[in-house]
């Protein structure tokens, strides 16, 4: 067995693609080696990727394929001589080498040839070529005169098997194929000399050789180096690194460096009056620096730059000075907008929204503001502590910041900036908070709004968007959802469920449609939201059959009730009463199904109490005494649970198919009554074993 190292050296691979590239490369090599029969039970493989190096290191690879026996069945032994002679020729074996064997179809000639397995070194060239040709880069390019596409120009293909360079080449569609080599390179400036990969006998040795040339090729090693370096510097100034937040963008930082060094910088005092979200966006998102928090958890004026150079005091100063200057220019820009924008009140921006199209066919953003004003106010009565006038005002102002200079420059701060400006204008806190939070939740990881007014505006915004786009036929299809309508529907669901809101959704959809001037709300909107609820509940590990049983009523628009009932039913079906009831239900429904098939008609749930015995009387009076939906789903389920014993007694003590046809029909009617009453609670036909 031997180790295999394949390393591709090229120009900078985009940071966001490196993780995928390392994983895909490892998976593809493993699959190819496995397909060739040289991937042994002890084999391992690692994918590694940095800006200029993409590699796999595999161990436990067989040095040759196992020998194989290829078996071919020929003609029957009594076939004409010509057919047999033809078969002999086709096998390339002498006639004596054929064997005769019995099969269920008769006695046949067989030819078995032993094929020696190829040496792995003879196969690797094609493996590499196939993987390179089919590599699934999100975007790829040609360069020079070649026709081969890669993420960026590729300069070297190094293939080392068992410590030795593999001879071979790859066709770039250029005049010259690229010969395989075994020479890597170090950090562009820190170690410009070549590094030999000959004799590399372990993953660690490979990493060590590159590290000695200031290239940390393993992504997780780079991340660790960055986080450790940042933490140490943060500690020096009494700050901490928010690792959860850093986790969201460390890939961007780690993908830009081979030799990370942490450098400490400081935001000038005058900029610290800017909102922390703005500082975060500028420093972390745009400049890819690491932000810190002080001991109280507040946004610290210190930040960390990860340079791609070895530490050198004089150079570090130059690098930091340059980065500080870039940051100063960016923050000065932001400060300019911050001061400029605040000269105009937020409500004075609303008329300017007229110039911005919401979407073709759905009017401009000023019209959207007016619709949000109305719909937020209409939602207020369904949200505890929500003042209608506040909701209306917040809805009206929610989109105003879209025409401010700041949001023009930092679109990701939409809403948040509006919240700050509203507070500056003296709008009540409830309104400012609502404006800031109304885009939430922006994804599965994002929190829902928590204040009453924010819930109203956030719901109104999403409902308005759903009704609008469905209204002009711009519905999501398959994987295409350009207007993020699934996300909007999921937002509606999460806000309602998290806030325990009972919202008459259909009524509000109607209202939203009326705001647009549509004749009616599109028929698909409610089913679309209900379908998202189904997906959401299943993502919460709810059984799909239970979800289906609760959501069977197609007109249901009370999302909170449906979610609660799903949970209740799931809980109910986990205890003895529930399980027993389901068993009873199956007996009832299967017996009815069998009898109804014979009778070719359904049995009505009508009974004659005069024909009942005691057991039937007890069951019948329990059924007629079942609480209706006003009593609540939990009470209904509890009452059904009590039926379990009565149903069991019925089946244990009574033969349905009585000799007296009247008694038999009466008993089937009683069973039909059980079915009817249970179906009123949930669609038990959907429950699976």
């Amino acid at each position: 067995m031997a180790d295999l190292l394949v390393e591709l050296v090229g120009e900078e691979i985009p940071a966001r693609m490196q993780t995928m590239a390392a994983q895909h490369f490892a998976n593809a090599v493993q699959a190819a080696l496995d397909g060739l029969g040289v991937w042994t039970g002890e084999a391992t493989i690692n994918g590694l990727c940095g800006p200029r190096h993409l590699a796999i290191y595999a161990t436990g690879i067989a040095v040759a394929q196992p020998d194989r026996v290829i078996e071919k069945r020929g003609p029957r032994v009594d076939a004409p001589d010509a057919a047999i002679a033809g078969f002999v020729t086709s096998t390339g074996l002498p006639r004596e080498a054929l064997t005769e064997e019995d099969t269920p179809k008769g006695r046949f000639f067989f030819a078995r040839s032993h094929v020696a397995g190829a040496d792995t070194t003879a196969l690797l060239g094609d493996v590499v070529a196939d993987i390179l040709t089919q590599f699934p880069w999100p975007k790829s390019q040609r360069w020079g005169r070649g026709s081969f596409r890669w993420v960026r120009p590729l300069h070297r293909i190094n293939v080392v098997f068992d410590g030795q360079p593999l001879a071979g080449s790859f066709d770039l569609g250029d005049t010259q194929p690229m010969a395989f080599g075994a020479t890597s390179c170090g950090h562009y400036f820190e170690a410009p000399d070549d590094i030999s990969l000959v004799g590399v006998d372990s993953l660690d040795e490979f990493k060590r050789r590159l590290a000695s040339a200031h290239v940390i090729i393993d992504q997780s090693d780079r991340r660790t180096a960055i986080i450790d370096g940042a933490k140490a510097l943060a500690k020096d100034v009494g700050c901490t690194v928010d690792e959860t937040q850093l986790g969201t963008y460390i890939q961007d930082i780690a993908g830009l460096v081979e030799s990370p060094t942490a450098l400490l910088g400081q935001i000038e005092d005058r900029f610290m009056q800017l909102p922390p979200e703005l500082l975060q966006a500028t420093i972390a998102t745009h400049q890819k620096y690491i932000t810190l928090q002080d001991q109280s958890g507040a946004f610290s004026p210190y930040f960390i730059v990860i340079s791609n150079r070895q530490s050198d005091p004089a150079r570090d100063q130059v690098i930091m000075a340059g980065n500080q200057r870039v940051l100063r220019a960016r923050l000065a820009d932001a400060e300019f907008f911050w001061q400029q924008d605040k000269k105009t009140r937020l409500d004075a921006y609303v008329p300017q929204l007229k110039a911005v199209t919401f979407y073709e066919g759905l009017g401009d953003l000023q019209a959207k503001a007016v619709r949000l004003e109305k719909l937020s106010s209409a939602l207020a009565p369904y949200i505890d502590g929500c003042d209608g006038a506040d909701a209306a005002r917040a809805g009206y102002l929610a989109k105003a910041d879209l025409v401010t200079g700041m949001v023009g420059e930092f679109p990701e701060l939409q809403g948040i900036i509006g919240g700050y400006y509203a507070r500056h204008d003296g709008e009540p806190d409830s309104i400012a908070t609502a404006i800031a939070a109304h885009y939430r939740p922006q994804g599965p990881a994002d929190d829902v709004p928590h204040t009453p007014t924010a819930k109203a505006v956030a719901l109104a915004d999403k409902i308005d968007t759903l009704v609008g786009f469905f209204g002009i036929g711009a519905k999501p299809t398959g994987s295409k959802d350009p207007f993020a309508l699934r996300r909007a529907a999921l937002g509606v669901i999460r806000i309602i469920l998290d806030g325990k809101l009972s919202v008459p959704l259909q009524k509000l959809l109607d209202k939203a449609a009326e705001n647009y001037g549509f004749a009616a709300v599109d028929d698909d909107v409610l089913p679309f939201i209900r379908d998202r609820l189904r997906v959401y509940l299943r993502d919460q590990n709810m059984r799909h059959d239970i979800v289906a049983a609760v959501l069977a009523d197609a007109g249901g628009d009370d999302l909170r009730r449906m979610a609660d009932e799903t949970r209740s039913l799931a809980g109910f079906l986990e205890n003895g009463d529930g399980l027993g009831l389901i068993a009873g239900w199956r007996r009832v429904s299967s017996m009815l199904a069998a009898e109804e098939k014979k009778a070719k008609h359904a049995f009505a749930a009508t009974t004659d109490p005069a024909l009942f015995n005691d057991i039937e009387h007890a069951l019948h009076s329990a059924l007629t005494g079942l609480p209706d939906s006003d009593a609540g789903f939990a009470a209904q389920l509890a009452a059904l649970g009590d039926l379990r014993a009565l149903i069991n007694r019925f089946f244990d003590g009574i033969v349905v198919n009585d000799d007296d046809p009247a008694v038999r029909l009466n008993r089937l009617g009683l069973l039909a009554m059980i079915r009817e009453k249970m179906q009123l609670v949930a669609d038990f036909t959907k429950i699976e074993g």
Partner: protein
Amino acid sequence: MIRTDFQSIILNLQSYWAQQGAVILQPYDMEVGAGTFHPATTLRALGPDDVWRAAYVQPSRRPADGRYGDNPNRLQHYYQFQVIFKPSPAESQALYLGSLKAIGLDPDAHDIRFVEDDWESPTLGAWGLGWEVWCDGMEVSQFTYFQQVGGIECHPVPLELTYGLERLAMFIQGVDNVYDLDWDGVPASDGGKIYGDIFKRAEIEFSGWNFEHADTDMLLQHFRDAEAECGRLLGLDKALALPAYDQCMKASHFFNMLDARGVISVTERAAYIGRVRALARGCCEAWIGADKAVSHG
């Protein structure tokens, strides 16, 4: 010691790229939004030369970026230094880094990064992959391997480098306001000029024209005229690709002016860009076709 005044940066870039075998051209004599529009890039990226190396300064006009001379970083008229090398050399990155050294920015004394930035020009129907080059966190150049121009695949693939000269000079000179850039390296006491001496008044006056005074009806008419003339030249029996492309550049600039004047709505915007792209595509096709006609005839 390498001189770092604005004009020396230009001179040093020119002589560096001349040494690398580039044809040193002068700016194209029309208003364009970027150095890429110069026919030496747009058209020569496609043909007829199998090898084409050129470098030039191109004044670039972005009417909407004007700030009446108030903003230290934004201008409606600025300079790009443009390099095009076809086919892209194997040592493209090293050549580029050499150019930084030539203008006094020793890459080894800084932190240089190549940060993903895919380039696309919707009006030219062009795209490529590459990076923005960062020096100590500052974007100092665009580095692009052209893949398509005018909707046509580039074969061989050209390398395009674009240096934003003001920004680069501000970085090298350590200046925070573009108007304070030293232009000529001559002390003010001796009549030396800084950037503001030369361009401040132009920024103020052109911002006023771009944003307030430009006659939009006239601009609209100019746009239509340029579009019509371009189409007519392309429709001739023997299409005149170069004059047609001049009209395409004019149309593009008039569109930028109309955009700055705020008379183009969001939805109309895409339609205008599409119209200019159609012209650019037509010119590029005619350019290649004319080239064939000449070489075969």
